[in-house]
């Protein structure tokens, strides 16, 4: 047993770090560190930089433009990116549709869509959730009815993250009403410019426009846009849910958030409060423990084992830790977390800064990150999964 990375892995980490130091614009890193609003252009700029280095789609096979990394390399990369305050890679094209097409797509779909994901031609968003059907995908209602060589799609998707920027949406749609509810679902690619699609913003409790509703009214979609065979959407959705996600614990995000927290506390009255020191130490120990839990899962994955319920466990603990760091950060601000000046998080803001460093985003991050334990399968759903898979309940 050895907790150290190999010399090769250490060298790999050094290479990533060096590249980030050279290529991650400090303008972007600063925006990420201080929870500023990232524009579409910001995200595209970062994607392009990663793409030019061949690191954007880092879990794709080499022949499609991946770097040929293993689980540990991917972890190191994500860890370094988080600690360098790089923008998150928008996952919908690269990490969600990409793997689906690689596994289930036709040759034509692969050769058409994959390069366009890499070079940023197509911005994708995800059409899974519906009002009344969050984690319970089997109950989804959006229909796609065959009409000649097309499907006619009607219905509504919701929680569509960054859908306001998207060129395309991949959707789960109902193509059959017979049999078990999950058997009549298909996976369809839809051009957002098709007539009959309307995107309506959902503003979150911190005022941010991050998610959307997408309404479909008699939207005509070529049948060639079906991925896999008709009524096999459930299989595809399940594949994506269990698709290896090395970064699910968010170790890098929590590590950099904890470092920020510590640097901020020093300037507040919490600096000499033993109860607060205890709170910070508790979350720091939990994070130190989780780093190793994460590496154990990684090592098993690198050894060929498919991480199943373990990634649920990492998701639960990882979100608890990040949310607790957010809570402590806000607590450290005391009453100065109360001012709400969203425009102070836009680039170029010239108004007054209120309170200490961090006051501008402490409460916003706390409230916004309550989503972490809800989306991507709520923590309750994750517990159901662990209960079944690891305990045999």
């Amino acid at each position: 047993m050895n907790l150290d990375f190999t010399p090769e892995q250490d060298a790999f980490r050094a290479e990533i770090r060096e590249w980030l130091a050279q290529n991650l614009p400090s303008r972007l890193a600063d925006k990420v560190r201080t929870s500023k609003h990232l524009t579409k252009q910001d995200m595209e700029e970062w994607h392009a930089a990663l793409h030019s280095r061949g690191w954007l789609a880092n879990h794709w096979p080499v022949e499609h433009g991946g770097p040929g990394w293993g689980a540990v390399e991917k972890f190191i990369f994500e860890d370094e990116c988080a600690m360098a305050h790089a923008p998150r890679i928008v996952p919908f094209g690269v990490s969600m549709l990409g793997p689906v097409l690689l596994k289930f797509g036709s040759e034509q779909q692969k050769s058409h869509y994959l390069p366009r994901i890499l070079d940023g031609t197509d911005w994708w968003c995800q059409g899974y959730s519906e009002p009344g059907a969050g984690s319970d995908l089997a109950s989804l209602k959006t229909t796609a009815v065959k009409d000649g060589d097309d499907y006619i799609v009607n219905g509504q998707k919701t929680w569509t993250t960054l859908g306001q920027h998207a060129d395309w949406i991949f959707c789960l749609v109902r193509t059959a009403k017979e049999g078990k509810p999950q058997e009549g679902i298909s996976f369809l690619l839809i051009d957002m410019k098709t007539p009959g699609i309307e995107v309506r913003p959902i503003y979150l409790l911190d005022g941010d426009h991050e998610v959307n509703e997408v309404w479909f009214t008699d939207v005509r979609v070529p049948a060639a846009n079906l991925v896999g065979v008709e009524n096999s959407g459930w299989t595809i959705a399940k594949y994506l849910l269990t698709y290896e996600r090395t970064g699910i614990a968010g170790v890098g995000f929590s590590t950099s958030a904890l470092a920020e927290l510590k640097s901020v506390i020093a300037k507040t009255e919490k600096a000499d409060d033993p109860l607060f020191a205890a709170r910070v130490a508790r979350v720091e120990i939990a994070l130190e423990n989780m780093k190793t839990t994460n590496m154990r899962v990684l090592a098993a994955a690198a050894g060929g084992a498919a991480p199943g319920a373990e990634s649920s466990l990492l998701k639960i603990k990882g979100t608890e830790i990040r949310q607790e760091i957010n809570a402590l950060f806000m607590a450290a601000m005391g009453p100065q977390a109360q001012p709400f000046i969203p425009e102070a998080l836009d680039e170029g803001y010239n108004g007054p800064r209120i309170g200490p460093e961090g006051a501008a985003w402490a409460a916003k991050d706390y409230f916004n990150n309550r989503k972490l334990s809800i989306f991507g399968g709520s923590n309750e759903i994750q517990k159901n999964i662990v209960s079944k898979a690891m305990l045999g309940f």
Partner: protein
Amino acid sequence: MDFSPTDDRRMLGDTLDRFLAERYYHPTRMKIAGSDAGWSREMWTQMAELGLIGALFTEDQGGFGGAGADIALIFERLGRALVVEPFIGALAAAALTQDQRDEVIVGTLVSIFAHSEAGVSVDPARLNATVTDGKLTGTKVAVANAEAADIFVVSAMQDGTSALFAVAATDAQLTPYPLMDGGRGADIRFDNAAATRLDMPVADLLDTTLLALSAEALGLMERCKDATVEYLKTRRQFGVPLSKFQALQHRAVDMVTEIEQTRSSVINAGHHLGTAKGAKYAAAAKYTAAVTGKLVAQEAIQLHGGIAMTWEYDIAHAAKRLTMIGQIMGDEDTHLMRFVAL
């Protein structure tokens, strides 16, 4: 031992409930909270006419209530309705002259308690604001409704001890902004502002303020809990209502248990207000409200599963206000250790 409200209080509560239900429903509240002023003077005048401000003061003070139970009753309802008008500030009129207080009670004068300083969450002994030769200098932060103020009641040090001072709003320099939990606030700079020393100790006004905030939190908790219970009964997953999932049932019960405990802590603080144990029970109430408030706000959002994360849904705003109450005028740890020390 009697936990039923007096007839007077029951009537006051009913009046307030009716007013808030008819005139302060959620869209109106959102409009007021998001307005340029961050509050509604018209609403304030109507509330004054209903006697809601007067009920915060004793007959000696020119009001017709003023007991801890009155304050708790009113603020619980204000909390439930997410009211942003300057009731917390009105409490500070207890420290002013009778003439000023009479004006506050009828709604023509707005008083605001300016207490919190950067890095000093609550302890009156640690204030940096200072009065020398009748002039007050210092900075107060995150003062809700500061722009509405006609007169500030400001805590500051004089000759090494803390005291309250009246400062005219015209002598204050404001940096105003909207607040995360609705309405507006400001950082306030006092620069050799003319200050009149008041008789009421800082600690007394602090206790009243803590009781009011705790009661407000209680009302918010009830609202969050009711909405969550309702949602769990309505929303179905895997073919059954969420309320049939035992894990969620038990979490809802935990919420209810802690809310009942919070209600008791508010009753205790109200009962002991103004007595030797008043400060201790006020600290206990604020501690309890902060801890339970965090739990209830988090669980309300989590158990709603997304919808309560949206601006459009009222519970998002209730959760924000509930959370922020835990941050202001001393957080849970501050009041826990005050409870030990008091």
